[in-house]
């Protein structure tokens, strides 16, 4: 386990250098959150019908989404992409570590590090000025933490699969271009998932993408509590295992047929 933790922490430290990007990111996300919030304020002013989320729950959901936006940001690891293109991936394979775990650790730090710099300032500002409410209960807060870690790992497992798919496509096209659209709509970042029509909910519930955001956020709101919360976290864990296993399997095939580019 040791080398992977070393990879994780060294990448983490590298990425923490990008402080200016983080400040810009915080500003941008606050702006987007504000726009979304005003849009939903207007929607709630316009209706008296019962909604799947209350006004204040929606506002909290939106701000959590802005704070944890990097959970849904999908792109292949550009460093690994370059290695596959210029042939340096051959060196990666000679290292005495498991390639899957190494790439997984990279993917994990790639999102955890920049996120760690943004979450707190956004939550603090939104909490003081813009109506973000605290977790529903102590249990909700505890389960939220578990579930956010689940979302992080789940996201890393998806990104790792995208990275591995580059062994076939080299350029990183194909699923890595289409995946962001799926994540965008089915994770809850575009629209809080409870607002989707009832007939779509069974599909949303099965797909892995809700585990990235919607699950932790609804646990936070107390919308998913007790058994429901545990089941939702189990859903995250099951998909995480499934995606890790398929990723490993893909990698083992991809490496067998890999032609190293360049010289």
């Amino acid at each position, binding site marked *: 386990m040791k080398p992977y933790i070393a990879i994780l922490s060294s990448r983490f430290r590298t990425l923490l250098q990008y402080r*200016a*990007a983080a400040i*810009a*990111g915080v*500003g*941008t996300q606050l*702006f*987007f959150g*504000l*726009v*979304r919030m*005003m*849009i939903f304020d*207007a*929607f*709630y*002013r*316009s*209706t008296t*019908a019962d*909604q*799947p989320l209350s006004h204040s729950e929606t506002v909290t959901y939106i701000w959590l989404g802005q704070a944890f936006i990097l959970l849904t940001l999908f792109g292949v690891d550009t460093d690994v992409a370059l290695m596959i293109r210029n042939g340096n991936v051959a060196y990666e394979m000679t290292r005495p570590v498991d390639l899957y775990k190494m790439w997984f650790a990279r993917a994990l730090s790639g999102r955890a590090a920049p996120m760690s710099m943004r979450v707190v300032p956004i939550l603090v500002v939104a909490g003081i000025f813009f109506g973000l409410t605290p977790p529903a209960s102590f249990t909700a807060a505890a389960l939220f933490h578990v579930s956010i870690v689940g979302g992080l790992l789940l996201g890393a497992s998806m990104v790792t699969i995208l990275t591995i798919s580059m062994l076939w496509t080299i*350029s990183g*096209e*194909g699923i890595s*271009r*289409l995946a*962001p*659209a799926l994540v*965008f*709509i089915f994770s809850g970042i*575009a*629209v809080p998932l409870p*607002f*989707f*029509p009832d007939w*779509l909910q069974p599909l949303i519930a099965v797909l892995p993408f809700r585990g990235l955001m919607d699950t932790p956020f609804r646990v936070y709101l107390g919308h998913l509590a007790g058994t429901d919360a545990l089941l939702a976290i189990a859903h995250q864990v099951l998909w995480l295992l499934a995606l890790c296993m398929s990723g490993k399997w893909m990698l083992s095939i991809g490496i067998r047929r890999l032609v190293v580019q360049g010289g």
Partner: protein
Amino acid sequence: MKWDSLRLYWRYVEISFRSQMQYRLSFAFHAFGHFLVTGSEFLGFVAIFQRFGQINGWTLPQMGLFYGIVSIAFAIAEAVPRGFDIFPRLIRSGDFDRVLLRPRSAAFQVLGQEFQLMRVGRFTQGVIVLIWASQRLGIDWTASTVALLLFAIVGGICLFSGLFVLQATMCFWTTESLEIVNCTTYGGVEAAQFPLSIYRPWFRTVFTFIIPLATINYFPAHAILNITDPLGSTRIIQWLSPIGGILFLWASLQFWHFGVKHYTSTGS
């Protein structure tokens, strides 16, 4: 001279097309992915409207008109003056020095850097929404309302181009791109997809008088829909307002010229 520049620009575009078409499949996936992301965003709005019915009295097809205008304008503004978007690279590498040596204006050459074809995804999606909205609204298109629609789109292209020019100009001083400006470009698109009247007053002021987004879809849309503006703009203002986008671009270019004069090379 004018025609000569136009011919040269066309050459730039041609080269850009050809280089992007070298990776046909890559281009197709890119454009299609873009189409899917923006399309799913609109489907999200459809879902919300199904729950809420309307927003401050505005219906989904009405919002589709706002959405369509701003999407089309932004898609073109992302494709055409893309050179300003990637301008920091030119500054950092020092290649801007070469631009200054050539016998054409710097703005013209930066503009010709790249024509990004893959934005056709967002463009197509915007057109589809606009056509759908206008059919649902039963808009009676006349020569003059079509002209106003085109005027609004042109105004929008100018406005967003102006923002890209401003963002690029700041690089003369900061060397790196100021991501925070994305609030006004991407954030502006996000905001202008809905009628401006739903926002808070300070926000409306910013997007009417400082970054005049309201002039390119909120005001003209009232004239096209033939309805009264709750914010009290008159028909004449609504017909003329897209000029705000053009003025914004003109002002941005003045700032750009000022920046070019103050440019010092990064060297190497």
